[in-house]
C-alpha cells in the first residue's frame, strides 16, 4: 500500500505536476475530484478491461507515482467521455495522457511505442501521417480486399477528380523535419528506437 503517509509528505506534488503540465486544460480540476465514479461508469475501457479512471485520480491524489508503470493506463480509448461528463470539470482522459508523457520522460512504457515509430518516421522524413506499415499484414488479414484497394488508390482518386495522394514538396518536408528536430522529437524517437534495437 502506498497509503502510509507521513505528515511531512507532500502527496499533492504529483497532482500539481499534472496541473502544471502543458497539456492540462482543466486548471486544478484534478484537485476537485470527489471520487463519484461517473468517469468509470461511462468508460468503455472500464467496461471491457481492468482500466479504472476513478482509481487513476485516487492514486494521483495519493501521490502514487507507481501508476506510470501500471499497464492498465494504456487501455484508455481517448474517447473523452469521462472528460465530457465530469461534474467537477476534471478530465481523466487528459490526466492519463499526461501520465503517459511522464512515463516516457522517465524511460517507462517505451515498449508501447515501438509499433508507432513508423508513424514518427513517415512524418519526420516525408511530412506524411500514415498508418505504420508494420500493421499492414494484420489489416490485410482482417480486411478482405484492402490491399487491392490500396494498390488502386490512385485510380480511384482520379475517378473522384482528386490528385494522386500528395507527396509533400522538399520545402515542406524540410520545414517539418526542422520543427520536429528543435522540439526534441527526433532525439526522443532515436532514443526509443535504440532501446527497441537493444531488445532485439
Amino acid at each position: 500500500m502506498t497509503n502510509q503517509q507521513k505528515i511531512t509528505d507532500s502527496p499533492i506534488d504529483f497532482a500539481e505536476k499534472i496541473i502544471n503540465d502543458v497539456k492540462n486544460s482543466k486548471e486544478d480540476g484534478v484537485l476537485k475530484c470527489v471520487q463519484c465514479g461517473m468517469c468509470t461508469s461511462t468508460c468503455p475501457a472500464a467496461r471491457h478491461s481492468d482500466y479504472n479512471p476513478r482509481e487513476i485520480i485516487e492514486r494521483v491524489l495519493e501521490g502514487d507515482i507507481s501508476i506510470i508503470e501500471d499497464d492498465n493506463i494504456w487501455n484508455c480509448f481517448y474517447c473523452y467521455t469521462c472528460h465530457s461528463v465530469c461534474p467537477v470539470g476534471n478530465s481523466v482522459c487528459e490526466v492519463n495522457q499526461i501520465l503517459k508523457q511522464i512515463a516516457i520522460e522517465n524511460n517507462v512504457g517505451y515498449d508501447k511505442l515501438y509499433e508507432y515509430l513508423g508513424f514518427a518516421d513517415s512524418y519526420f522524413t516525408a511530412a506524411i501521417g500514415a498508418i505504420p506499415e508494420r500493421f499492414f499484414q494484420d489489416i490485410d488479414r482482417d480486411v478482405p480486399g484492402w490491399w487491392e484497394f490500396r494498390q488502386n488508390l490512385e485510380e480511384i482518386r482520379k475517378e473522384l477528380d482528386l490528385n494522386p495522394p500528395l507527396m509533400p514538396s522538399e520545402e515542406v518536408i524540410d520545414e517539418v523535419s526542422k520543427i520536429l528536430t528543435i522540439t526534441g522529437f527526433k532525439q526522443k524517437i532515436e532514443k526509443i528506437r535504440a532501446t527497441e534495437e537493444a531488445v532485439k
Partner: protein
Amino acid sequence: MKHVPTDDLLLFRSCLVSVEYPGVEASTKFVFDKLGVDYAISEKQTCCTGLGHYSDVFNQIDTTAIGARNFKIAKELNRPNLVMMCATCYAINKKSVKLLNKKDDLRNHINQLFDENGLSHLKYEKDDLKPTENIFHVVDILYAKKDEIKNHVKYDLSGYKIATHHGCHYCKVHYEDTIGGVRDPNIMDEIIEECGCSTIGWYDHKRTTCGTGFRQRYSNPDLSFTATADKMNAIDDEDVDILVHLCPNCHIQFDRYQHLIAQREGRNFRAIHLNIAQFIALAMGGDFDKVIGVKAHTVPVDSVIKDLKEVEK
C-alpha cells in the same frame, strides 16, 4: 447558436480521408460547391499528427508546433477558418489554438525555437486564431447551411432506416463548442432531416465510442473490437440500413471491421457506412464512383442502396 462562417475556409486535408476514403473529400467538395461554400485546399498543410499524437509518440509541444505552422499557412492564404473532415484533426487543432492563446509559456517557447532556428515566419501571435471562431468541422458548416440543403436534394432516401454516430472527438473534447448536443448528440440527425429523411434518433450506445481507441485497434484489437461490438449490436438490434458518421477513424472501424466483428458476435451485421458528406452528396445526386467513392468501401454501398428514386417535386 454560435456564428459559423461559410467563407474564407481552408479545407484541412486529412491523411486518413486521403488514403482510406477519398470519397469523403470528393463528397465534401461536391456538397460545398452546391451550397456555395467558399473554401480552398493547401498543398503545404500537413497532417494534424493524429495517430502519432494519440499513440503518445508526439507530445503536446511537437503537435502544437506543427499546428502553429499549419495555422500560419491558413493566415497567409487569408483563410483563417479551418474546417476539418476528421474529428481528430478538429479536436487536435482546436486544442493547439486554445493552448497557444492561453499558455504564454508554451507560445513563447515555440516562438523562441522558431526564432533561433530560422523559422521566424512561422511564429504564432496570441489570438492569431480563436478556437471557437476559427476552428470547425464540416458538420458545423453543413449545419449553418442546412436550410439550403433541401433546394438541392435529388434522391429520396427516406425509405432507409438511418442512424447516426457522432464522433467522440467532435462531440466530447471541446463540448462547449459542439452544436446539437453532447450527451444526446443530434447535429447529424438534424442535417439528415433536411434531406427529407428521418433518423431513428436515440438508440442504446448512441454516444459510445466507435472503439478505435487509436492504439487499441492496432495493438489491443480484442479490447477495441469488443467495444465496437457494443455499438454494432445496438445498431443491428434497430435493424439499421445506413449508419452515418463524421470521422474517418470511426469509418474505418465500422466499415473495414464490420464482418470481423459480426463473426466474433455470431451475428450478421448488414448496415452500410457513410460519412455525413457522402450521405448529403448522395441525396444531392452525386455519382457512386465519381463523387461518393464507393470503391473504397469494404461493406458494399449497393448492398443496401440498390436503386435510387428521385424526389417528387
